[in-house]
Every structure is written in C-alpha cells, then in structure tokens.
C-alpha cells in the first residue's frame, strides 16, 4: 500500500462544529502524579456549553504545545471523557481524519497489536514502549451537536486515540508498558526527538 493515498480520508469534524470550537483558552497541563490523571472521568454532555468550552480549551492547548498530537480533559485538570487528537503532518501517520474532538468515546473494535514508543505531556520525563492496536474503530459523540460518530483508522492515529481514551479512563501509558525495560528516561538533550502522543 503506497503512502500517497494516506491523509486522503474525509475530515471528521463538520465545519459548523469547528466554528464553535475556536477561541479556546490555553490551559496549564497537569503532570503525574496529579490525582486527576489516575481517576476514571465521568461521561459528559457534549451539548453542554461548558463541555464545548472544555473542548475548545483542549484544542487551543494542544495547538500551542510543540509536538503535541492529542490532549485529554484530565490533562488540563478536568475529570471527564473528552479529548482532541490531530496527527496531520506526522511522519508515522497513515489514515488521518484531521482534527478529531470526541466526548464519551469508546473503542468498539481493535486488532493488530504493534509496539511503539510513546510520550505524554503529563509524564514529561519518561517515554515507554506500548503495544496498541494498529487497526481501530472508535465511537463517540461530537461536541456542540452531540452527534454519535464512529471512526475507523490505523497506525499512528489509532495509537493517539487509544492513548487519549486511556487518559479519559484514568490510565497513563505507564500502566501499559510492554515490560520492565520498556520505560525510558527522555533524553534531555533531544527535547523534540521523541514523538509525543500526549
């Protein structure tokens, strides 16, 4: 399969929804061992204006963080099942749906486990080798409209979605590393070298 057909997938978010998700505030990113990162977040009402604002803040914070391809509500201190992901222009991306913002998302199908190294803005000093499904279907609700959507994807976008859904459930990549030698200190002299799933 050539990579030329990658990134040709339809964008997930309707323009009308995106229009409501601008102007978010850049929030401080919470780091482990903050309790909010280890607690399962409650389901949220995607049409609630507070939840829409939360989603806008997640996008704004992701956009200003170098190398950040996803951010979940607990990472800005809010327990709840909402996150954003955008793996556009990432070297490891195959299928790509552009900016994805989902509320109450769950994995409905997963296959083909592949090991990859992950980082996280909430665990800034470590990376870890984590096995994730490389073929994935996720369903969840769009902010603003509350529309139920399902996306099927693969490779890096699949990894990013699983990482963020884990955050919403109170799990960090540390909980999923592949073994005792799968945790690595981030090389401080190469701050941008590891791709961060966040």
């Amino acid at each position, binding site marked *: 399969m050539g990579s030329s057909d990658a990134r040709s997938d339809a964008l997930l978010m309707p323009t009308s929804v995106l229009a409501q998700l601008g102007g978010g505030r850049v929030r401080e990113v919470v*780091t482990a*061992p903050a309790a909010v990162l280890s607690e399962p977040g409650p389901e949220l009402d995607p049409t609630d204006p507070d939840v829409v604002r939360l989603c806008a803040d997640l996008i704004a914070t992701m956009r200003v963080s170098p190398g950040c391809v996803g951010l979940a509500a607990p990472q800005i201190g809010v327990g709840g099942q909402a996150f954003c992901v955008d793996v556009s222009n990432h070297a490891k991306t195959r299928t790509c749906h552009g900016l994805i913002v989902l509320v109450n998302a769950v994995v409905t199908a997963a296959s083909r486990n592949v090991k990859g190294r992950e980082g996280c803005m909430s665990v800034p000093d470590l990376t870890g080798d984590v096995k994730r499904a490389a073929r994935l279907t996720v369903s969840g609700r769009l902010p603003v409209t509350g529309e139920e959507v399902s996306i099927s994807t693969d490779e890096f976008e699949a990894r990013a979605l699983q990482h963020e859904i884990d955050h919403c459930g109170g799990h960090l990549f540390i909980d999923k590393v592949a073994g005792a*030698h799968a945790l690595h*200190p981030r090389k401080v002299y190469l701050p941008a070298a590891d791709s961060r799933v966040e």
Partner: protein
Amino acid sequence: MTTLAITVISADRPGIIARVAGALSGLRMNLTDSSMTVLSGQLAMTLICAGETPIGAVRDALGEAAGDDLIIHVLPVGAQVVPTVPSASYLLTVHGADRLGIVSGLTTVVSEAGGNITDLTTRLAGGLYVLAAEIDLPADADVTALRDHLTVTAAALGVEAELQPLERDEL
C-alpha cells in the same frame, strides 16, 4: 570449565566495557550473558563468562584492568538452580508521588504470594516515581488475591498499581 559472574560498577565514561571485555578475551574467557545500564551517571554491568582460566587468574587480570576507577567483583557460578514449579509471567506497574517504602512495600506483597521478580526498573522523574517489575508467579498462585493485596498496599502508599499478564508474542 569455569563459569564466573562478574560485576562492574564505575562512573560512566567511554571505554569501560572495552577494558573489561579486552581483559577477559586476553584470558580466553568467553563472554556469554551480559547486561549493562547507566543510572544517574553510574555504570553497572553484570556478565557471565566461561572458559578454562582459573578464577584467581581472572581476578588478578581484572584487578589490573580495574585500575583505581572500576569496582569489579568476580564470583564462581554454581550449578544452575532450575525452577521446578511451572510459572506464569506478569508485569507489575506502579506510579505515584515519590516516598519511602514503595519498592519494599509492594515487593514484599509479591514475595509473600510466592512471586519471583525477574526484572525490575524504577525511575524517579521529577516528582513522579515509576516502578515496572516482571514477576514469575507459581501456576497455582491466586492472582486475584495478589492483585487485591497490591491495590490495598498501593493505596496505603498513595500510589497506583496494576498487575497484568505479560504478553509474549510467539512468532
């Protein structure tokens, strides 16, 4: 045939492994298993070597190679102790705020359940303490009870603990 276990500790700098390996190959001692890591700038290496050179001669040669900057110990390896009970492998991960007693508290729970830790990494990164341990449990171990006991102990220490089967891909 002599089989020896050798440990090397030193401040990390280029060339240490070459010095040790060079001394061993000069004695025609064959390097078999080895593991090396650097923690906070300290190099630590364990290696197993086998050959016909008597342990005294190996100690002398490595003592010379050690100079005044390496700490080297050489120990004879006895007959292999083969575990007789069939076992299953698990991975214990723990993370939380650093405090005294995390490793001792949780490894004690593992050992009381008959678990044998075969690999362990701990990292202190900023204020975050992380532990990952690979554990062999006897085939008849009560994994649910162990998991519960670990959860209770972790909660008392204010950390999160997860125990899951260690996946092995057979290809």
